[in-house]
């Protein structure tokens, strides 16, 4: 796949999520909400590490949007977010669970430094630019393009609030 083609595809994904993005001031809530059990499970799984806790809060804000929440509940994939601090694994399976370390059976492995995360939040760069500059690397995206589209869009929306 050429860089140009990747850019177009990723741009579409980003715009798609921008359209659906739903801003919320709430911080932490149930991911797979709908049942008391689901809420309780989330609390048990609350990450004890910085990256996991932060990402959980950011993603939870996005999942305030019931449409997005309902779609995410149907996702089934495992994503390793490999930062320069340490990797965390996000398991999407009727909600999202965070765990420290890199799952060996990851659908996707997305590499980026915490500094890149900050630059994205500050909108000093975009996910597209960061990807093209090699500041974000993804393994598994050609084998799992749908998973890539989903995670990429969710991450983009989460970091931009």
């Amino acid at each position, binding site marked *: 796949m050429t860089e140009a083609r990747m850019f177009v595809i990723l741009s579409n994904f980003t715009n798609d999520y921008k359209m659906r993005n739903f801003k919320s001031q709430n911080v932490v809530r149930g991911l797979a909400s709908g049942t008391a059990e689901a809420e309780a499970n989330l609390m048990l799984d609350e990450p004890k590490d910085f990256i996991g806790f932060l990402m959980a809060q950011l993603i939870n804000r996005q999942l305030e949007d019931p449409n997005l929440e309902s779609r995410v509940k149907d996702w089934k994939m495992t994503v390793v977010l490999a930062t320069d*601090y*340490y990797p965390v694994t996000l398991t999407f399976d009727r909600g999202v669970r965070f765990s*420290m370390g890199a799952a060996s059976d990851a659908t996707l492995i997305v590499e980026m430094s*915490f500094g890149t995360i*900050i630059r994205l939040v500050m909108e000093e760069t975009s996910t597209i630019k960061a990807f093209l500059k090699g500041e974000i690397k993804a393994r598994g995206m050609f084998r799992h393009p749908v998973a890539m589209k989903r995670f990429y869009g969710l991450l983009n929306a989460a970091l931009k609030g």
Partner: protein
Amino acid sequence: MSLKEKFERIVGADHVSDGAAERYVYSRDMTENPPRTPQLIVMPSTTEEVQQIVRLANEERVPLVPFATGQSVGGLTIPQVNDAVIVDLKRMNKILDVDEEGMYMVVEPGVTFGHVRKYLDENHPGLRYTYAISSPFTSVIANALLQGLCDLSTRYGAMAEFINGLEAVLPTGEIVRVGSAILGDDNWFGRYPLPDLVGLFTGWQGMTGIVTKMALQLWPKKPFTRHFALFTFGDFMTTDLLKQIVRADLADDAGALSFSVVKGLIGMPAPIEAIEGEPDYGTFLTLSGVTSLVLDEKVRLLERMVNSSKVKEPKNLLIPFEAVARLMSEEAYGWVDFPSDSFKQLTEYDGLTWMGTYIHTKNWGEALFKGRKIVEKYGYELMAFLKPMKGMHFCEFKFIIRFERDDENLKRVRQCNNELLDLALDLKAIPYKTPVWSAKKLHERADPNFIELVRRIRDLLDPHGIMNPGRWGL
């Protein structure tokens, strides 16, 4: 007439109590220091009432323990002898004067950091005071007398440095002033050139009298300010980088926290673990300038210093506070605007203690490195607070422990603090806001002539030994 009735004649019946509930509350704090129940609590509202209380205490040989707002963590208002009377000063809560031109305020002991912030914002918006690393209910005078630190300590040192002068009731009942206001009111501009007798009251933990007024310096607000979070790795690398930043006079404030405290600030519930791979410290930096150009240049220099540090540690990261707020929520601005309240995480349990010191700059990194090993050995959360002081002339570090107050924990906390203090004294650090056990350890290592001089001065000022007897191990 009973002692209670005599005090009631001075301050009124509504302001004296020997009730079991009040005596219990004043007998303890959150620390591991053992409680002791006072016989009475009296609450004066004027300097003259304080004077009458002290005179009565001399006649009756009753020990007095001054108490401002009770926010200290160090057992500092727990009586050290039986049958003490607590003199609670919180009714004396007036801001008596703000001198715009001389940039100082005159306050009573019940005035808190919260009071000052509100009053200045509403009446003197061009001036600012400071805040302590404690609740907004903390007494401004108490923190200054105890030589505590604040968000201006990185530039100006311990809070006692901010005192222009004070009024006190001596243990023998005389009312005295020290500083330039010996020539009258409206003249609290400074302490020099005079014998500097402010030192008769600072660091004495209430053994030399009861301070009833204090003049404290204020500062003009800088029109351009920016805040940053700095994530760093390693005790020595962190302190080395902070030394560079502060020596270059870039930061108004640099408050570094163990990363566990940062995680607490973003809402992580207790107990908080230090995870391998995470930064070791998060430092909140405040930069300011009289023009945006000055500020921008400071920011550029700061970025250059942090980038240089990446040669040794590529993961060091300077984060604009705008990013922190977007990641964590707008509430994050409260951490740097008036952050006292953000430290409420420290009261997660019913127990809270710390061992804090001022230390030579050369020993700062070693103290942190070895101190964290001690805290980890005892299995407590790693909650170090550190601050470069007075333009890097000296440093502060403390290890805070929040704990559940069961017997086992109380014993373990005492052991842990003891080891931390031994480490600090080995490195010639001076513990501050010392509980009695800590002061006694300091005495063992200090120049005996200094301790004897302290004793003589105390005996000279307080011949009947009524002011906070037993305090500071004397």
